[in-house]
């Protein structure tokens, strides 16, 4: 598994740069990961990311866009504004979680 350095921190990532170890993440790292894809974190961003972090250990997989929207009450449209173009993928990247499976 490749290791990469994000800011001052060394983490394990997959071929696309998604973190592979849930416990290597903290919010400081989340801020760094967001900056790498051009996103400056605000409280609205954190509401979504904190939900993803809390949901993952219970569900065993990364929440879909619809799940984030339904369970946090953030409209999908707003998620597209906060994490432009590919919100599900970008949220997973910032939250240090596997890319959501678009399903099957």
């Amino acid at each position, binding site marked *: 598994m490749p290791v990469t350095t994000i800011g001052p921190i060394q983490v394990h990532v997959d071929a696309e740069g998604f973190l592979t170890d849930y416990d290597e993440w903290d919010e400081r790292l989340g801020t760094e990961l967001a900056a790498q894809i051009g996103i400056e974190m605000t409280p609205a961003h954190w509401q979504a990311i904190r939900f993803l972090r809390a949901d993952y250990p219970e569900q065993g997989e990364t929440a879909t866009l619809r799940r984030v929207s339904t369970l946090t009450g953030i409209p999908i449209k707003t998620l597209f504004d906060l994490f432009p173009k590919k919100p599900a993928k970008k949220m997973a990247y910032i939250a240090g979680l596997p890319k959501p499976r*678009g399903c099957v």
Partner: protein
Amino acid sequence: MAKTRRLLVLGGGTAGTMVANTLRRRLDRRQWQITVVDQNDTHAYQPGFLFIPFGGYRPDEVVKPRRRLLARGVDLVLGEIDRVEPVADTVVLADGQRLGYDYLVIATGTTPRPDQTPGMLGAQWRTSIFDFYTLEGATALADALRAFDGGRLVVHIVDMPIKCPVAPLEFAFLAEAYFRERGMRDRVELVYATPLPGAFTKPIASAELGSMLDERKIALEADFMVERIDEDTKTLISYDEREIGFDLLVTVPLNMGADFVARSGLGDELNYVPVDKHTLRAKGHDNIFAIGDASNIPASKAGSVAHFAVDVFTGNFLAHIAGRPMTGSFDGHANCFVEAGDGRALLIDFNYDVEPLPGRYPLPHVGPFRLLRPSRVNHWGKLAFRWLYWHALLPGRPIPLPAHMSMAGKQHQEPKE
């Protein structure tokens, strides 16, 4: 004498019928009562819907009464389900009838919900906007295709997961062949709009199926998440403000599990029942299972998955009611024929962990079916499957295909970039 035990199966579709019929053979009739609840007595062979728009099947060729498909000794109750009361081990119907159970199987599947996308169910519904996952939709679309004299036809998926995730691709391939046969292909622009990043979910199959779209000059609009439909301008509008105009829209509405699942507190955000993906037992409930499309397992919502799952479930259920641990583990096995047009089809075979790969099936190197490559034999297989469905699959007769996916006969391959 021991008290009669009650198995209640909600939904008399593919999964529910297989569960009831399979367990009827295995459970003593004096000790076990098996009851299926459904809202109507019409069982549809849903894979047949795909061919109706192109005149391949008549509507009456794909439906039969549920009652005739259930084994003797299985009761059928017709009624709308209001809710499950898990604490009271009771299902309440809309007319107030209460049905107690010792074990409950939820097999109420998934349903297209055009009401969930603004603008879909308006004036254009079944005028220029069609679905083909319902008998009514597929039948109405047959008329619309016959009358279509050119323009832009958009095949569209609202969001994943959907049942039979390859069907929209098959529809696009069949439509392309249909217009060619009618000598009007040059007057039809075909667009495939999907929320996925490519033609399909899994990389190798996505590359293969994506190049089949290219070869047929079907434009792929990927990562397209529809927000609403503007009925006046006949335009799909995505959350990131992309627009696709259409003359004819063939859409796959948002798929959701049954509303009673949500009312009963048993569902996730799309009303699917969260289950253990290997045993299919509902999380937090010892005597409730969800089989087929109704569960949240990360597998295709497809009859083949339900079939393989029932194989594993049956053994587990018999162990469970005898107080033994459930040792069978479902692997998410799916196999699907994918119609390619011109009398050819692909076959894909995969599970939770292994994506569709090229090769031969079910006999390694022999076939007769080819995996992930179009062939005529695959197409005949798909057509023959309708007979197998009514006469072997639903009655619960053994079909000589192992429940667990096998790697034998599959070629490892790097995804194409």
